[in-house]
């Protein structure tokens, strides 16, 4: 239902030019549009009722992000899904923030990755030094999606002590305007926003902790599983759009007097693209259906999907441009923007090789 509404919103009120306008604005998106989406309940679709939402299952997330992908929506759904999912593991007052997120008033970002960590989720060098009534955070967070516009940051840090290890990773909620938080926002190649964030002696109270001490990594895995499903579904939406544009182009563009869609070499490649799209759709269904299964099953299906999207998504993105020829290379025509999003999703939450390695470690399919 909400996904249908999202679909209509995208089709009717979010043409590609509007999208580019939003992306080019100072914030990198439109506050008005975000408020409207909140009003329609689209943000709430990402969260469970217990957190003030109206959805939150794997299928809710997948369907919503398919539409987001179809519209190349730049409003910060992903960052708020990540941040909100983390806060749902927190205290009652932290959960209240999720409600404000759902209402569109408050913006979150998930500040977990660090400069040399690549895709390793356990790589946390940011430290949290215990004080009498809280912690002092120090460290650097990299490529924080929508980090420049967030009101609050969910920050992972290692609580200092004797030989701190993965089991000391803990999450903290940090107001983005807090003293010592230095943000440098920038655009991404595909039209979104991210930020480098330096934390220098950032003082937070004890109740800034999300969940329990040392629970950080397990929350991160939950957050990232949802985020990965979301961006894969987003890729599927973008793939649908890219294939639709390409099909239309093949039917209308003529060369030597016939539509180029009559050329069998293109037909056969198109057939493979469409087949792979169905495979990705199946992967999204599998991952969505296992989002609340055991961690092992969930991660197998999530990694299988991400690998598939990385492999076949790239093929579809590249082929969509290639079949368009020169026009596909231009900013003015939409297909290139879809292609950029599809390919850059490979750089979120681990690329093809990262997930293939993870599949190997997890062993055979559940």
């Amino acid at each position, binding site marked *: 239902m909400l996904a249908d509404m999202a679909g209509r919103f995208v089709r009717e009120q979010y043409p590609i030019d509007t999208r580019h306008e939003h992306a080019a604005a100072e914030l990198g998106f439109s506050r008005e549009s975000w408020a409207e989406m909140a009003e329609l309940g689209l943000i709430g679709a990402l969260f469970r009722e217990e957190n003030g939402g109206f959805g939150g299952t794997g299928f809710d997330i997948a369907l919503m992000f398919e539409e987001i992908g179809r519209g190349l929506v730049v409003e910060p759904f992903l960052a708020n899904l990540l941040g909100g999912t983390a806060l749902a593991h927190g205290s009652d007052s932290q959960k209240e923030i999720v409600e404000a997120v759902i209402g569109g008033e408050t913006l979150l970002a998930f500040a977990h990755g660090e400069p040399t960590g690549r895709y390793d989720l356990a790589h946390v060098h940011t430290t949290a030094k215990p004080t009498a009534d809280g912690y002092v955070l120090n460290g650097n967070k990299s490529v924080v999606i929508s980090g420049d516009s967030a009101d609050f940051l969910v920050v992972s840090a290692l609580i200092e002590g004797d030989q701190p290890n993965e089991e000391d990773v803990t999450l903290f909620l940090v107001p983005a305007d807090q003293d010592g938080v230095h943000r440098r926002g920038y655009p991404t190649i595909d039209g979104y926003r991210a930020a480098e964030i330096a934390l220098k002696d950032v003082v937070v109270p004890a109740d800034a902790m999300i969940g329990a001490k040392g629970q950080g990594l397990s929350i991160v895995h939950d957050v990232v599983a949802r985020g990965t499903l979301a961006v894969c579904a987003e890729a599927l939406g973008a793939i649908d759009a890219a294939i639709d544009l390409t099909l239309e182009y093949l039917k209308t563009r003529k060369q030597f007097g016939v539509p180029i869609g009559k050329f*069998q070499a293109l037909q*056969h490649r*198109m057939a493979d693209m469409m*087949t792979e799209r169905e495979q990705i759709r199946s992967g999204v269904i599998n991952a969505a259906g296992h989002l609340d299964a055991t961690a092992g099953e969930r991660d197998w299906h999530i990694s299988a999907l991400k690998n598939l999207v990385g492999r076949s998504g790239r093929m579809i993105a590249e082929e969509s441009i290639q079949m368009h020829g020169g026009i596909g290379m231009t900013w003015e025509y939409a297909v290139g923007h879809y292609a950029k999003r599809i390919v850059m999703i490979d750089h979120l939450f681990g690329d093809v090789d990262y997930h293939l390695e993870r599949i190997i470690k997890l062993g055979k399919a559940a």
Partner: protein
Amino acid sequence: MDLNYTAEELAFQQEVRAFMEEKLPKRLADKVKHHKRLTKEDMVEWHAILNSAGYLTGHWPKAFGGLEWNAIERTIFDEEMTAANGPRQVPFGLNMLAPVLMAFGSPEQQQYYLPRIADGQDFWCQGYSEPGAGSDLASLKMTAQRDGDHYVLNGQKTWTTLGQYANKIFCLVRTNKEGKPQEGISFILVDMDTPGVEVRPIILLEGTHEVNEVWFTDVRVPVENLVGEENKGWTYAKYLLVHERSGIAGVGAAMAGLSYLREIAQDQQKDGKPLLEDPFFAARLSEIEIDLAAMRTTNLRITQADNDGAPPGPETSMLKVKGTVLRQSINDLTRRALGPYAMPFVSEALDAGYNEEPIGPDYANPIAGDYFNHRKTSIYGGSNEVQRNIISKMMMGL
């Protein structure tokens, strides 16, 4: 978007699983697992076992003695049977001729032939392809000329699988040379014992005898053997091709093949460790697993749509292409897993009764041959090129 099985479906799955455990002879399962050759007797035996539980004709309508399985039940059965290394049913009578007879045959034909398919009295083969015709059925040349109460058949069929075992063959023949080429085709049933029918083996590239040429010289067939109307055979042929789509993805076979490959790769050593732990090998295996997990769902989605009454679309062709590519990649990786022992090939060792020591590991001998043999899967039943034509044309509307 719920793809979980219902309680009834899960119960059926358990029932089939229990049946396979109890009734599938280990001797047959071992042959299938180890890619040994099945004899005609093996096939007939397995049909009889399946028939004793009604499973052989489970997908037939109740009116014809079936259990009226829907597409999901049929998928469950196929997956369970294949995963247990049960031999695949011989499809020619069961899944190809039977639906045509049910839809277009006379009551007499239905009453006579259908029970004989179920109880194994008849072993059917298929007379569709002709030399030089390939995927282009409309150009077929074999003729049937009316002569009193008989048709007189002359011509040649080819790629007739298991023709060496069959006692019956259904043929597409030309009964009219005027008009559009597809308008003069008829569908006719032939007893292979009729004088003038000659079966000549075609040996495949790796040495197997699976397919045949069947030659017809002045073969007299009673007119009652015509199915439906004269010159309407093209319609029946298309019906057959579209109707026989269950199991086209080969999910069960892929799962069984992948699990066998895992066993082999666990046994094979590379630098003192199981090959399965080699990163490159593991990567290739895992990519196949990922694709197969997705294809299993793609297959269920399409099967579900079929169950819901949607007309068959280009999705079936997608399953054919992806399914063959996947199974061929399993064959390929299994070949690679063997290292140098992929090379030895003792043909006799594939037959029952061979008792000499194997060359190398006992699973090695048939593997490379299988890899070559299964190149056929992307060629027959409408080549992958034809399938890609269908996909793009139906979906692009060009």
